[in-house]
């Protein structure tokens, strides 16, 4: 697949401290996106790797094309699991100059991987040990001299290999609900930092661009979590967040800015960035917010808890579920409670149902239907389109599949994607 991916597959042997590059044949043999990622996992499965990759459209102007992924064996249940690389990390993964990255083994000392324009540097991370994800992101960006570097890192939870751990994308957590952050910790891999200034070639660039522009016009460009909450069958959380909401942000190429930046260390009416250094946080997990709200948490306290979880590198989804049982308001109490999070396997879902883990993370009824959820994830991870975006509706999935031709010169049948995994 010459178009839509550029560069080889990077194989990182952490134990040996070596990297090598091999041809990316999996996209042609198994299919693009997660299909190739799973094939790579199978190929190197003996080394219990983490596989980083991106979908077919990731990094293009196709609406919602922000999605990358990490595949690994979840320490929660020993099964294969996929965690999303959203925001700008998926696009940067695509542009890093590597079509996919397979990280094998464990390093004897803390290291981080700096991937830039087809160059892979395995660097000493001793000075980053013990840092939370915010400090790690700042330190790497300062050392490398660029604030747009996407940093996938672990905090103290990941370093301790806690089952509550998740990797974080920059400062704002991630959808890693399979504790792949703990796998990074076990590998002594503190972070993966990504930046690429390359370009993607499309088979028919003008046709792809025009079709993507048409799709964006027809997609709803909304702000906040309303549509997502509706798709999940939950009450809207925008009104709950509103008193502290400052602005909305979207992931790469997404017409909907669902992520909501909230300010609680200065008034949300302050527009400039010259005020306090850390005015608040970006709420990226609608589900975590729903659980805390439903648990009776005040919005500001809930956001402080999400900040603490993001900093510590704790999975917000499971953490919020565990915290929801006992609402807190004092900042220091929240910090202590977050530090004590264990992973919540035994904790009850607010509605009383058990968590069912699958390839795409926890399936928690009654939110949406499982069939819809799985279909959105399968299509999303192959094409590189945010599954939440697909689930919330507004983007014509059939037309998305038609773009495989101008993008990569291939035909992809939605039914065939269902059979890929």
């Amino acid at each position, binding site marked *: 697949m010459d178009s839509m991916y550029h560069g080889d597959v990077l194989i990182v042997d952490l134990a040996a401290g070596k990297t090598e590059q091999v041809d990316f044949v999996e996209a042609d043999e198994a299919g693009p996106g997660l299909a190739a990622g799973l094939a790579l996992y199978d190929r190197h499965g003996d080394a219990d790797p983490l596989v980083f990759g991106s979908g077919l459209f990731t990094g293009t102007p196709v609406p919602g094309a922000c999605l990358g992924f990490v595949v690994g064996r979840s320490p929660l249940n020993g099964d294969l699991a996929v965690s999303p690389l959203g925001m700008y990390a998926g696009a940067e993964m695509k542009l890093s100059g590597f079509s996919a990255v397979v990280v094998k083994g464990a390093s004897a000392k803390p290291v981080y991987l700096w991937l*830039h*324009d087809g160059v892979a540097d395995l660097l000493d991370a001793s000075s980053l040990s013990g840092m939370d994800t915010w400090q790690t992101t700042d330190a790497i960006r300062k050392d490398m001299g*660029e604030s747009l570097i996407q940093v996938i890192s672990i905090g103290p939870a990941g370093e301790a290999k806690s089952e509550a751990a998740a990797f974080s994308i920059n400062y704002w957590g991630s959808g890693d609900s399979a504790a792949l952050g703990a796998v990074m910790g076990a590998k002594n891999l503190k972070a993966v930092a990504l930046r690429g200034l390359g370009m993607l070639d499309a088979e028919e660039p003008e046709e792809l661009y025009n079709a993507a522009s048409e799709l964006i016009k027809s997609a709803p460009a909304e702000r906040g979590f309303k549509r997502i909450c509706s798709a999940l069958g939950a009450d809207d959380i925008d009104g709950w967040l509103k008193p502290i909401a400052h602005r909305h942000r979207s992931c790469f190429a997404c017409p909907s800015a669902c992520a909501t930046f909230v300010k609680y260390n200065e008034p949300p009416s302050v527009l400039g960035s010259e005020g306090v250094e850390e005015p608040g946080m970006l709420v990226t997990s609608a589900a975590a917010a729903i659980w805390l709200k439903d648990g009776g948490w005040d919005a500001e306290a809930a956001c402080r808890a999400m900040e603490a979880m993001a900093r510590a590198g704790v999975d917000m989804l499971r953490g919020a579920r565990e915290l929801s049982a006992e609402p807190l308001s004092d900042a220091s109490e929240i910090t202590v409670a977050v530090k004590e999070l264990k992973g919540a396997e035994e904790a009850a879902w607010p509605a009383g149902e058990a968590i069912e883990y699958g390839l795409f993370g926890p399936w928690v009824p009654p939110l949406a239907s499982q069939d819809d959820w799985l279909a959105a994830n399968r299509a999303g991870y192959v094409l590189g389109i945010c599954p939440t975006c697909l689930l919330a509706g507004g983007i014509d999935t059939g037309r998305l599949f038609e773009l495989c031709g101008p993008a990569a010169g291939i035909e992809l049948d939605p039914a065939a994607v269902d059979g890929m995994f």
Partner: protein
Amino acid sequence: MAVPGGRLARAASDPLFERFRAEFASGPLPRVAVFVGAGASHSWIWFADLLERLGLFAVSFIDEQAVLSGDLGEFDVFMVGGGDTYAMAESLGTAGAAELETHVEGGGFYFGSCAGAYLVLSGVDREPFAPFELVNGNILNVMPEPPEPLCLAHKYLAPYGEEWVFHPVYGEVELGPGPVSNGFKCFEGRGTLASVLFGGPILSAGNDGEVAAVYSGLTTRAAYPWPEDEAARFVTGRPAVIRARHGEGTAVASGPHLEHPLFPRANALAAELVWRHWRSRRGNSVRRAPGSRGAAESSEVGVLLQEIKRQVSNARIVGFGLEKMPVTWRIGVKVWEPEKIRMFLDSAWRRLPCLEENRSRMDDTTCLAALAEGYSRVTGLARSLRTKVETGEDSLEEATSLLSSLKELTAKFLTLYFRLRRQEDVS
């Protein structure tokens, strides 16, 4: 299927270049020197792009010391691009002017664009420009008290004695044929071509100056320090490119950057001017391939190339980050924006795959090691510069040092690259 690689690759694939490549390849290739010395900005790297498109790989990048040492005698063509004309003239001095004159009188070809054009106009006769008189012409964009600019105040004016050189339009302009260029293929079709004017002169031709192109119109892809209609009245119909015969040779002064890589038809005009001179001179030159000292141990070459790639990438990433910051640096009379940093680095980055593909031909590990060390230093300088800019400190010293290092390194890199391409071409 579209040409991959973006606008630059599409421009480079213009069929016009095939014709020139075939014509030049039909005999000995001209030996070309590109000026990278004092005052030269980043725009000389566009000459490297142009020469590569034309298949002209016998290229050297020389500074004022080489000119003053008489090195121009080794070359058939001398190209001087944009930058700080004062710094160029002062560094070359009267002796350098004499070297240029000797070069052209003896049958050489001088191509000056923007600053390189101001430098050699006979009408630009104030110190330190007085000794340089290769092209009989003058500049019209000069007056004692230019009107206040509507935009681009930091680029609008340059001092010229008691007067000021000013720029009423900055960006893409349209060029039409002059008497010299009737029948040039680059003007076929629309009858005009697009080029870019980045502070170059609006010209008037002297008696023996032959007009090769005129400013025929302005475009929407430009900034207008003057009201657009006034700029149009001032510029339109005026000479943009003048050719002058001088002894056995030819000198060309071009206001616009005909060598800019995104404008293939303007490239073709420059190529046509070089070719028409060269076809009558090429019997005097001999095609020579540089000697090879034998391939170095390939793993050593691979390691060094990877290190160069690593450091160029690191520096490009910092350079890109600097482009988001509201900062410029005035070095001499030239204003430098942060994006110039990446222009230097990109010129090496684009060519690295070719070096990697031809690593078995690489024979100069000393040069590769120097490049690797140099780009590592550049990465450090770029990061220091970014820290200074971010903290609001004065960053002129760091910027000057970085840009100077980049110029030197890029010339070194391109010298290696063109030597490799020439070996490949001859074999």
